[in-house]
C-alpha cells in the first residue's frame, strides 16, 4: 500500500490546478440546449488548445500521454475547480477507447484528432424504441451496397443524448438479416449529415432539448465506417459499455467534489442540530470516499494488467445510486427551497438518469449476479 502520489504526479496536479483556476468559465448555460452547447464548445476548444482535452491520449492525437493515475488527478482537479460538464464525453470517453482498441490506423488518424479538438461531436446511437435495456433486440439494419463499397443504414435510434447538437453518431446495426440477438450486429460510425439521416431533438425531464431521435433511411456509409469488423459489433460494443459503466465516464472526482459541497451546505444549514439530516450527509460523504477508494484499487489492478470486465457493473450501480442519495440529502437540507431551479435541483434531475442510462441498474444487478457471483442464467 502506498496512498501517496509521486513528485511528478503532484507537479501534474499543480499544473492542472493552476490552469483550471485561471481558465474555468463561470455562468454557462446548460450544455444540453443550443445556446449552452455552443458555450461549452468554446470551452472544449480552449481545453484542447491548452492540451487538457484528452490528457490520457497519445500526443499525436492531442493528448499528454498521461497515466491512468494522472487522468484521475486531472478529473479530481477538474471537478474541484467547478469546470463545465464535458459535451464531448460520449466521444472521448466511450467511442475513443473503442477506437484505440479496435480501430484501424487509418480510422484512428481520421477520427481521433478531430474528436479531441471538438471539431467532430459524437453521440451514441444504441437505444431504439424496442431496444433499451435489451440492447440485443436492435432492429436497425445495414444492407450491403457492393457497387458503392459500403452499407445502407435504415432504422430508428432514440434517447440519443445531445444528438441534435452533434455531428456524428456511433451505433449498432444488424448486418446479417438472418441473425438474432447479439449475433450479426456491426458497429458503425455515421456522419449525421449523411443523406437519409434525420435528427429530431426533444425535451428531457429537465426541460432541455438534450434527447434526440435519429431516423435513418437508406443512409449510405462507406466500408471504413465499420469499427472492429462486420458482424462483430456486440463484442466491440461491450468494450464501450465497460467504459460507460465503469471508470472512464464516472471518475470519483465528480462525487468527491459534490460531497464536499454537500458538507459545506450542511454546515451552513445547521445540520449539527439535526442528527437525521446530518447522518444522511455523512453517509453520502462516506460513499463518495468509498467510490474513490474502490477506484484506486481498481486502477491498481488495471495497472498490473487485470481486466475490469463485469466488475464495471459494480462501479455503475454504486456511483449512480450514490449520486441520487447525495443530491437527495442536499434537497432535504434545502427544505422548501429544494424546488428552486439551481445547481442542486438540476444536479438531482441529472442524477435521476444515472440508474437508467448505460444499462438500467436492474440489468447491472443481473450482470453482477451472473458474471461476478456466477449465478445461473437459466
Amino acid at each position: 500500500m502506498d496512498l501517496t502520489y509521486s513528485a511528478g504526479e503532484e507537479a501534474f496536479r499543480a499544473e492542472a490546478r493552476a490552469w483550471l483556476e485561471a481558465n474555468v468559465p463561470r455562468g454557462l448555460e446548460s450544455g444540453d440546449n443550443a445556446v449552452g452547447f455552443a458555450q461549452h464548445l468554446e470551452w472544449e476548444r480552449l481545453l484542447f488548445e491548452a492540451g487538457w482535452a484528452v490528457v490520457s491520449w497519445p500526443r499525436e492525437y492531442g493528448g499528454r500521454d498521461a497515466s491512468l493515475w494522472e487522468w484521475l488527478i486531472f478529473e479530481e482537479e477538474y471537478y474541484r475547480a467547478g469546470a463545465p460538464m464535458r459535451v464531448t464525453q460520449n466521444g472521448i470517453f466511450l467511442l475513443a477507447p473503442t477506437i484505440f482498441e479496435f480501430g484501424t490506423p487509418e480510422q484512428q488518424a481520421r477520427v481521433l484528432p478531430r474528436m479531441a479538438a471538438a471539431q467532430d461531436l459524437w453521440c451514441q446511437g444504441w437505444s431504439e424504441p424496442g431496444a433499451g435495456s435489451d440492447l440485443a433486440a436492435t432492429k436497425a439494419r445495414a444492407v450491403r451496397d457492393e457497387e458503392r463499397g459500403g452499407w445502407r443504414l435504415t432504422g430508428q435510434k432514440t434517447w440519443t443524448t445531445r444528438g441534435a447538437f452533434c455531428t456524428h453518431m456511433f451505433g449498432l446495426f444488424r448486418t446479417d438479416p438472418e441473425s438474432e440477438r447479439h449475433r450479426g450486429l456491426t458497429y458503425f460510425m455515421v456522419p449525421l449529415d449523411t443523406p437519409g439521416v434525420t435528427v429530431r431533438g426533444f425535451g428531457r425531464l429537465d426541460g432541455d432539448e438534450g434527447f434526440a431521435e435519429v431516423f435513418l433511411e437508406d443512409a449510405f456509409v462507406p466500408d471504413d465506417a465499420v469499427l472492429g469488423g462486420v458482424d462483430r459489433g456486440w463484442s466491440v460494443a461491450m468494450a464501450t459499455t465497460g467504459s460507460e459503466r465503469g471508470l472512464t465516464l464516472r471518475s470519483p472526482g465528480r462525487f468527491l467534489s459534490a460531497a464536499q459541497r454537500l458538507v459545506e451546505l450542511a454546515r451552513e444549514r445547521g445540520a449539527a442540530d439535526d442528527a437525521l439530516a446530518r447522518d444522511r450527509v455523512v453517509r453520502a460523504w462516506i460513499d463518495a470516499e468509498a467510490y474513490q477508494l474502490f477506484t484506486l484499487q481498481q486502477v491498481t489492478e488495471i495497472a498490473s494488467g487485470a481486466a475490469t470486465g463485469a466488475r464495471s457493473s459494480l462501479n455503475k450501480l454504486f456511483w449512480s445510486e450514490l449520486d441520487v442519495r447525495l443530491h437527495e440529502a442536499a434537497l432535504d437540507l434545502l427544505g422548501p427551497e429544494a424546488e428552486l431551479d439551481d445547481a442542486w435541483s438540476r444536479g438531482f434531475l441529472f442524477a435521476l438518469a444515472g440508474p437508467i442510462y448505460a444499462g438500467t441498474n436492474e440489468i447491472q444487478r443481473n450482470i453482477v449476479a451472473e458474471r461476478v457471483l456466477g449465478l445461473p442464467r437459466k
Partner: protein
Amino acid sequence: MRFALTSDQAALREAVRDLLRAECPPAVVRAGWPESNEADAARVRRVWAQLAEMGVVGAAVPEAAGGLGLDACALVGLLEEAGRAALPLPVLETAFVAGPLLAAAGEEALVQRLVNGDLLVGAALDGSGLVPYARVADALLVGDARTGGGELRLVAPAVFEPVASIDGARAPGRVADDAGVALEAEPAALAAAWERGVLGSAAQLLGLSRTLLAMATQYAHERRQFGVAIGTFQAVKHQLADALLALEFAAPAVLRAAWSLDAGAPQAGRDVAMAKALASDAALKTAATALQVHGAIAYTVEYDLHLFAKRVWAGARAWGDADWQRTRVAAALGLTHEGATR
C-alpha cells in the same frame, strides 16, 4: 500510488486462510460453544497453538518484544481470514489489541506468554464491561478508550459474571468497574489500541460476510423450486448482488484505514470510523440476505449459517456501531457542535 497488499502481506494472508480452512471448519467453530466437551475445546486450542507458531498471535507485538511487528495493512488481512473462518477465539482482542498494549505497558512476562500462545485475552475497551470470550480467556482487559483516554484495568479470568450470548463462541462475561488492577498505559497507546480494535473488528466483519455470501450463492445454485435453481430468480439475484456491492465498497475503506493508521495520518480516526461504519452495514445486510436466500434451512441450529450470522450481529455493534462511527465522521467533518473530539 498502489492500492494493494504487498506480495509478502498477501502470502501471509493466504497461509492463514489455508491453515484455518484446514483446521477451523464449522465443526471446530461449534466446538467453541459452551456445550462442547473437553475434546472439542482441545481442537479449538490446537488452532490457536498453530496460529501462535505462525506468528499470527504476536503479529502486532513489536519485534523487540518477541512479535512480528507487522503493520495494520498486514493485520487487517489476517483478521479478515479469522472472520472468514469464524475462528471461535479472541484473536482480535488478544493479538491486535492486548499484544501491543501490554507491550507498550512494559508487561514483558504477559507479552511473552501471549506471543507463545499461552495467554488468551478478552478485551472490552468500550466502557461496557461486557467482555467477549471471557470464558476461555486467561486475562481480561477492560476500560473505556473511546474518547482517547481513560483507565485500563487488567482483570483475572475468575473475576467476572458469565452471561449468555446469542453467539455461544463469544461466551462473554460482565466485569465490575473496580475489578482487577489498573494497568499503566499511555493515553496514546490506549487510543491506538482502540483504533486497532475498531479496524480489526471491521476486517473480521468483512471475512464473516464473505463466507455468508459464498454460502448463500452456493445454496442459490443448489436449491431448486418451481423446477429451477432459485438463483435464476431475479429477486434472489438482486439481493445477492446488493450484498456483494456493499462488501466490495467496504473492503477498500478497511484497507485505507489501515494505511492511515500505519502512516500516522491526522485523519486516521475518521478513516477507521468510516471503515467500521461501512463494514458493519455491509455485514448486517449480507447476514440478513444470506438468511433470507436460504429460507427455513438457515433458521435451524444444525445448519452452519448461524455460526457466522450471529458473530456478525454481535460484531456489527461491538467496537462502536455504524451510527456511532458515523457520528465520529460527522465530528471530523465539522458537522457536530463538539467538533473533532473523537
